[in-house]
Every structure is written in structure tokens, then in C-alpha cells.
């Protein structure tokens, strides 16, 4: 039998169901991997809770009460997803001692499906960042090279899956926060159509853009997780009434006749050459599998980054105003009146990047600026949605890079904030339009760092996106490669 940690989530689930591997064995393997490696992928490790849960799940599987494909599979949960009775920090000093009395719907559904939560993964503070460097609990390292960032904001989720510290992990994607760490860490990361997964219990960054996503070893694993966590939730008015539980069974691996659009704007200046080459090569691979490549032009995409930052920050400024030191979370001790309680608690409870975005959002919504900034950004958002709709009249999926480069060195990307924000160019438009997007490993650069290719589909085409990624992974081995192993050159 191969190393237990080499298995995909679905493979492990199968071994557990047929009794070849015990749940406790799988959970222990993951916990051991966490101890051996020091990527700082987790903020909270739930060793005892996971081990006792493993026993309970094992009993239920034996008793026939649990028979789903992911029963017994250990998973990481991004630390902006509430876990009842378990510390949920958002990687912020503000919530460093916050124990929510309720769980996110996605977490509840995972546990109902028999998954074992092994810990809360590190992240950029309040999911603000694309490198994993803004956490109050220290930055996460890229398992492929500890001198490099893992990508963010679901940094710990990406690193954990890459390093065998979880079979899959939940993340959240507001402007690329699942897809970017997936690309940097060489794993598969999918952000579904807005509304596919209930946001109840996801601590909001930008509500109209936030969507819970999955980082896993394969597209099929992602499909299985969405089958568990997706579908209508009466606690989230924006969750869609879609039929849940059909993604995995819909994977055929057949992409014959699928038209894949390639927008010239996504492969122009500013894109690292090795990324460009490997992403386009992924297109050729799909073409070899029977897909058709269609040239596209989407000039409006250049406005996506400014529109995204205005909308996201405006919503964030409002969403994060509840952290005021009054009810829960960090409270400054030296306040003499209510105003100084607010000022001191928020000044000291939030990190620099969070404060920067709150200020930007507050400014953009201020009297006299609303029309020029927020309203205009919403108009751009509408135009981008329409541009995507137009593009999807001539193609079924769009192929794009995830990030202009492979994982930057730790500390390097934070120097020029404007440059850093522009790195989100390939991911944010997908959130603005509420589309499904997946990042799949498609090669490595000269330094041996993974490269991700992104497939984007129209709203509610999640199954099509997953199926194309699955077809690609049936034909390639990039997604099976793990850091620290000898890899066979493609």
C-alpha cells in the first residue's frame, strides 16, 4: 500500500469504507504530518477533538450510519469559518480569543458527512491578502520552498493540503483567495458560483464577493466536497436553490466539443513567461482531449482590479465595523469613554492591511464620493458580468492564468501595495461576476514552484468546470506531485 498521505480524499474514503484504513489511522497520519512540518499552516490544531471524533465516525461507518464518499476523511477548516466551541480567529488579534457558539453551515455539513476537522488553518487576516503574510499568528510558508509565500488568503488551507496536513481544506474566495494559494501550492482549488455554498458562519470580508471554496488534491475531490456542503441553506438568503450532491456523479472526463476561450488580455504584458507557457500548454492538452480553443478579447478586464478593491473594501468597512470592542473580541483596556474604546480596540485589534482596507472602504462610501467610487465600481461590475456573458456566447469555458507569477518570496510582495493588488488581475473579475473558477496544477517554473491554470465558466456551470479540470487531471500528473518528493519531469 502506498503512503497513506499520498491518497486523494476520495481514495482514502474508499479505503476507510472497505475497512483497509481506520479513521483514527488517517487522522493520526495527518496530525503527525503537522508536527513534522513547520509551515505554520494551522492556527489551531484540534488533536484531541479530532481523535475522539475519529472514533465516533469509525463507529458510525461500521454501523452503517455513514456511507458517504468522504466519511472519515480528515479536513482543515479555514479560520474564518465558525466552528462551534472551537476558537475562530480570522487570523486577527481582534478575534484571537473568539469562540463562536455556532458552526458555519459548510462545517456542519462536512461533519454530518463524516469528515473529521483536524484544525483551523492559517490565513491572511480577515481574508485580506493574496500571499498569506498578514496573519496575526505569523505567515505561512510554501511547502515547496519555505522562502516563498503559499498564496492567500487561504494560505494555511493551500499549504496544509500540499504538505499532507489535510486531505482537503475549506477556504474562502473573495478575489482569488482559494485559487491563488491552490496555484502557489500546487493543489486544486475551486471557487463555485456565488450562492452555491451557504455563507452562514463565514466571517464576512466582502459579502457580495465572498464564497466558500475547496482546496484539495484533485478536481474530483473538490466535486465530492461541494456535494456535501453545497445547496440551499435557509440561514443564507443569498444561497442558491440548486440541486446539491450531483457534481461528483456528473464527472465524465469527457471534454470533446467543449469550446475553451482564451482571452488575449490574459496572456499579455506583466505575465511571467513560464506561467504563460504552461497555462497555454494546458489549453493544448485539453485540445488534445477533444476541446476546441477559441480566441477571445475582453478589454474590460483591466478595470476589474480597481472595481474589486472599491467594492470589497466598501463592504469590508461595513462588515468589520461590528468589531468594536463592545461585545466580543479584543477590547482595549485603557479606554476612558466609548469613543476611545472604539478607537483603541480597533487600532490595536486590527492589523495594517485590514486597517488600510477599512479606511479605503470608508472613504469610498463617504458623503460626496459614493457616486464617483462605489457606484461607478458597481457599474463596472455590471459591465464585466455582461462582458463575460457575451464571451460565453462563443465559448463554454475560459482558460486563464491564476496569478501573473509563481509564488513570490516571503516579504517581497508586500513592498509595493499597488503592484500587489494588481497581482489579483486574473482572479477578481470571476468574483465580480459571481462565476465558478478552478485552479489546477499545470506545471512548474524553473525554480520548481508550481503553476496553476484557471478554468472559468458561466454562472451555475460548476459541473462543467469541474469536469474539464477532471479530464485534464486524468491526462496529466501535475496534481499528483507533492513537495519534497522526487518528481518526474513532464
Amino acid at each position: 500500500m502506498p503512503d497513506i498521505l499520498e491518497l486523494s480524499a476520495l481514495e482514502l474514503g474508499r479505503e476507510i469504507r472497505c475497512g483497509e484504513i481506520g479513521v483514527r489511522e488517517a487522522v493520526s497520519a495527518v496530525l503527525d504530518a503537522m508536527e513534522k512540518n513547520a509551515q505554520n499552516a494551522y492556527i489551531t490544531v484540534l488533536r484531541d477533538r479530532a481523535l475522539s471524533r475519529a472514533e465516533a465516525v469509525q463507529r458510525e461507518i461500521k454501523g452503517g450510519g455513514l456511507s458517504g464518499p468522504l466519511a472519515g476523511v480528515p479536513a482543515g477548516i479555514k479560520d474564518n469559518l465558525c466552528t462551534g466551541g472551537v476558537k475562530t480567529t480570522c487570523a486577527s488579534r481582534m478575534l484571537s480569543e473568539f469562540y463562536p457558539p455556532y458552526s458555519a453551515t459548510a462545517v456542519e455539513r462536512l461533519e454530518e458527512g463524516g469528515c473529521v476537522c483536524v484544525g483551523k488553518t492559517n490565513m491572511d487576516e480577515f481574508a485580506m491578502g493574496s500571499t498569506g503574510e498578514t496573519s496575526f499568528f505569523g505567515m505561512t510558508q510554501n511547502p515547496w520552498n519555505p522562502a516563498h509565500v503559499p498564496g492567500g488568503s487561504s494560505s494555511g488551507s493551500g499549504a496544509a493540503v500540499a504538505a499532507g496536513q489535510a486531505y482537503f481544506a475549506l477556504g474562502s474566495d473573495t478575489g482569488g483567495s482559494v485559487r491563488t494559494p491552490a496555484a502557489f501550492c500546487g493543489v486544486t482549488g475551486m471557487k463555485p458560483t456565488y450562492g452555491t455554498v451557504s455563507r452562514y458562519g463565514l466571517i464576512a470580508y466582502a459579502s457580495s464577493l465572498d464564497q466558500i471554496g475547496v482546496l484539495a488534491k484533485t478536481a474530483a475531490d473538490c466535486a465530492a466536497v461541494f456535494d456535501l456542503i453545497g445547496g440551499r441553506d435557509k440561514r443564507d438568503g443569498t444561497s442558491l436553490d440548486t440541486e446539491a450532491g450531483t457534481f461528483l456523479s456528473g464527472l465524465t472526463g469527457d471534454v470533446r466539443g467543449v469550446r475553451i476561450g482564451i482571452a488575449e488580455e490574459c496572456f499579455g504584458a506583466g505575465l511571467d513567461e513560464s506561467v504563460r507557457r504552461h497555462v497555454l500548454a494546458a489549453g493544448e492538452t485539453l485540445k488534445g482531449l477533444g476541446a476546441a480553443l477559441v480566441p477571445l478579447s475582453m478589454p474590460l478586464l483591466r478595470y476589474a482590479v480597481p472595481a474589486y478593491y472599491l467594492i470589497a473594501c466598501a463592504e469590508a468597512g461595513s462588515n468589520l465595523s461590528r468589531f468594536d470592542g463592545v461585545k466580543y473580541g479584543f477590547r482595549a483596556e485603557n479606554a476612558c469613554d466609548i469613543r476611545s474604546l472604539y478607537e483603541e480596540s480597533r487600532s490595536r485589534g486590527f492589523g495594517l492591511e485590514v486597517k488600510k482596507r477599512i479606511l479605503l472602504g470608508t472613504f469610498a462610501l463617504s458623503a460626496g464620493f459614493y457616486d464617483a467610487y462605489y457606484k461607478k465600481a458597481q457599474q463596472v461590475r455590471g459591465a464585466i458580468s455582461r462582458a463575460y456573458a457575451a464571451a460565453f456566447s462563443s465559448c463554454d469555458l475560459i482558460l486563464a492564468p491564476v496569478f501573473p507569477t509563481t509564488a513570490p518570496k516571503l516579504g517581497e510582495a508586500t513592498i509595493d501595495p499597488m503592484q500587489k493588488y494588481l497581482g489579483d488581475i486574473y482572479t477578481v473579475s470571476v468574483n465580480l461576476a459571481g462565476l465558478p473558477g478552478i485552479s489546477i496544477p499545470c506545471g512548474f517554473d524553473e525554480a520548481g514552484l508550481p503553476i496553476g491554470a484557471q478554468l472559468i465558466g458561466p454562472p451555475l456551470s460548476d459541473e462543467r468546470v469541474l469536469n474539464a479540470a477532471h479530464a485534464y487531471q486524468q491526462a496529466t500528473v501535475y496534481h499528483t506531485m507533492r513537495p519534497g518528493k522526487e518528481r518526474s519531469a513532464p
Partner: protein
Amino acid sequence: MTFETVVGLEVHLELATKSKIFCACAAEFGGAPNTQCCPVCTGMPGTLPVLNEKVVEFALRAGLALGCDITRHTKFDRKNYFYPDLPKSYQISQLYLPICRNGRLDIQTPAGKKRIRLHEIHMEEDAGKLIHDPLAGFTRADYNRCGVPLIEIVTEPDFRSAEEVVAFLEKLKSTLEYLEVSDCKMQEGSMRADVNLSVRPAGEAAFGARTEMKNMSSFKAISRAVEYEAKRQIEALAAGGGVAQETRRWDESRNRSFAMRAKENTQDYRYLPDPDLPPIDIDDDWYERVKASLPELADVKSARYRKAYGLPAYDADMLSAQKAMAEFFEEAVRLGAPPKATANWIMGDVFRLLKEKGLAAREMALAPDKLARIIALCGGGALNRHKAREVLAAVFDSNADVDAYVSAHGLLQISGEGPIRDAVAKVLAQNEKSVAEYRDGKAKVFGFLMGQVMRDMAGKADPNVIRKILEGALQP
């Protein structure tokens, strides 16, 4: 120079829904602090609001009854400000697409009917309550009220006096009680008004600088505050000064307003559309269903009472002003009580008893069948009017059975001639002097003799029969 007072109102009404606007918590008033709240209405991280559609329906009822244009595609916005009674630090409200616009409500003024225009009605959530304890140096927060649904009715600046303001609020209260949209209890804070007031030289078209007095919670306070503030502004202008645009606080115990916050310090609420709540589309079906369910309101009822029952306008207005009283009246009539007699009993004894006991019509224990029975006994001669009033007063609080009370107290009127004839003979024999006076032409002695007979019969005799027999017996 004479000045004109100009007032506009913002009236907040808590809706009478069972649960809160965005969660399943009970919306009822009271409860020990922080026992009627949950992670959603206290804005805990990660929780999301989910709209209670009853709130939309209630707002729609109010809007349709008040003649508003309904915004068929409506949505919620966030009003951002920091205050410890607001756990999310934003209030979910409506700015850009309020559910109702351009309504009206007609009021009676000494000069006749006047139309007050409504600018809009929007839906929003209430905030919690802070309880300041200056002795302990603490402020405590009670979040029970967080998320209780409100509508805010914003009028145009159409009022010119305190009387008009109060007439409007009374009419509004009556209308909303009819709609069962709000119980409008000012003492429990379910109806609160912000008063915007300015003055201008009579005849001038432009408005003066206005002040705002927030959260006024009694008609009396509003009336006094309008009068005080108008006088204050007029005096300032007459003395050659100006009026500062500001928020003022009305101090009910001192009958004065005090400056609170100047305009330069007004907050920037940084409104934005709430991304957690999808827009609401009110389709034709929903719209028509709500419209068809609207009850008959006071004005229409009053007209019907005049026409169908021949009641005077004053009576018809009084009976229809409050839903509970109108229902009481109509039910008594339905049970067979003659409308005019019923109106008289209500306008007289019932209103007097309510006033004496300090009760509102809806708090009255007496059921309409009891009044109908009293009227029937009285009209049929079984109970004389004096005894009937005694019975009404006796059963008013308990809603006790009328016939049982009457028989237990032996109050049934005696109309049989035999016993009355005996009593008359007895009284005449005992009062020979009076009889002689009467026969000498002193007609007023008749009343004395009537009273003596009635007293002899413990007040239960039919006065008409006494009169007839007494007149006969006194014939020389």
C-alpha cells in the same frame, strides 16, 4: 411680523409581527435583558440576516392603506454608525428603494379636512437599549429589541400647528390599529416620532432653518415640544437672531428643548446596499392579495354608519375612530341591538366607564353581547334605564352574565299593574296633604308622588305604568 410654524414628522412604528425582521427571535416587548436575542440579531461574526416576509407584507398593508405608490422592486441598505446599542455597527434600513412612496393621510382640523402628504415609508430594524447607571458608572446593553421590525413613515413638511401634528398621529394610530400592523403603544416605545420644525415669516415660500427633536414618545410631549420649539424659534428670529440647524433634545420633565448636536457634527452614515439580502420583488399576486385583505378603515366606516344607521357625523366618527370600539359597536348591532340606542349607550356610559378606569377600547373586558342584552332588557321594559346603567357598571369589569346579575339582584322591572296599583294606593293614603295640593293645581307634586311609589317598589317598577296609574288615581 407674524410667523408660520412648519413641521414634518418621522414616525417609527414597531410592527406587530411575531418574530423579528431577520431572525426567528420573538419580537414581543419586554423580557429579562438579553433573553430574546440570538447570534443573528446580535450581529455575531459570520451570521446572516434572513428576511421575515411578514415584515414586507405589513409594510405593504400600511403603504396601500395610506395611498402610497409601492416600490415593486425594493431592497435593503446599511446605515453605518457606531453606537453600543447597535451590535453590527450598522442598521439595516432602506435608503435607495424604500418600499412605499408618495402617500397621504387626511386629518380633521378646525378649518376642515386637511391632507398630509407622506414622502415615504421604509422598513428597518430596531436597535437595542442602553441602560445607564450613573451611580455605578456602568452602561448596560439589552439587545432584546435588536431586530424588532420597524417602519418609518416620513411626512412632507405639511403641518402648521401642534394640533395638526396630534390629529395626524391619532389618525395614523387608528389606521395602523385597523390594519393590525402595529399596536402603536407609545408607552412601550412601539410608536415614536422625530419632529422636524422650522418657522418662517407668514407668506414666505422658503423654509427656515430647522431643528430636529428625536424619539418623542407621547402625544402630550409632542404637542408641548412643538409649541415650545416654535415659540423659541420665533422669539429668536423676532429678536433679530437666527436658528441653528441642529438636533435638540426635548426634556419632558422641564418642558424645554436643549441643543444636542449641531449640523456640522451630523454623522455620515455611508449607506450602501446590503449585500446579504437579495432584492425583494413584489409580484402582482402578492400585491393583489395584500390589497384584497385590507380592512374597512375609519373614514369609510364612519360614512357607512351615517348612511346605514342614520347616526350623526360626530357619533359615527367617534364610534369608528378605534378599531376595537367599531368592532364592539358592530357586533352589538349584529346581535340585534338598535344602532342608535347602541351608539347612545357607547357614547355615554361605555366611554365614561372607560375614561374613569383609564382603559383603551381594546382593553375593555365587556363583550358586545352583554351590552346588547342590557339594551334589549331596557328596550323591552324588563329593566328600567336607571337599573340598566347600574347593571352595565356592575358587569363592565367582569363581563359577567347580565341575566344572572339581574335576577340575583332582583332588578327586573315590575310592569304588572296589580302591585303598582297597591303601591299607589298606599302612597296616596300616606300623603294626603300632597294629594290635596296636587288637586289644588300644584302639578309639580306629581313628581314627588312618582318618586315615593318608585321607592316603595325598590326602583324596579316601570315608570310609565306608575305614571298611568297615578294619574288615574289622582283624578278627583
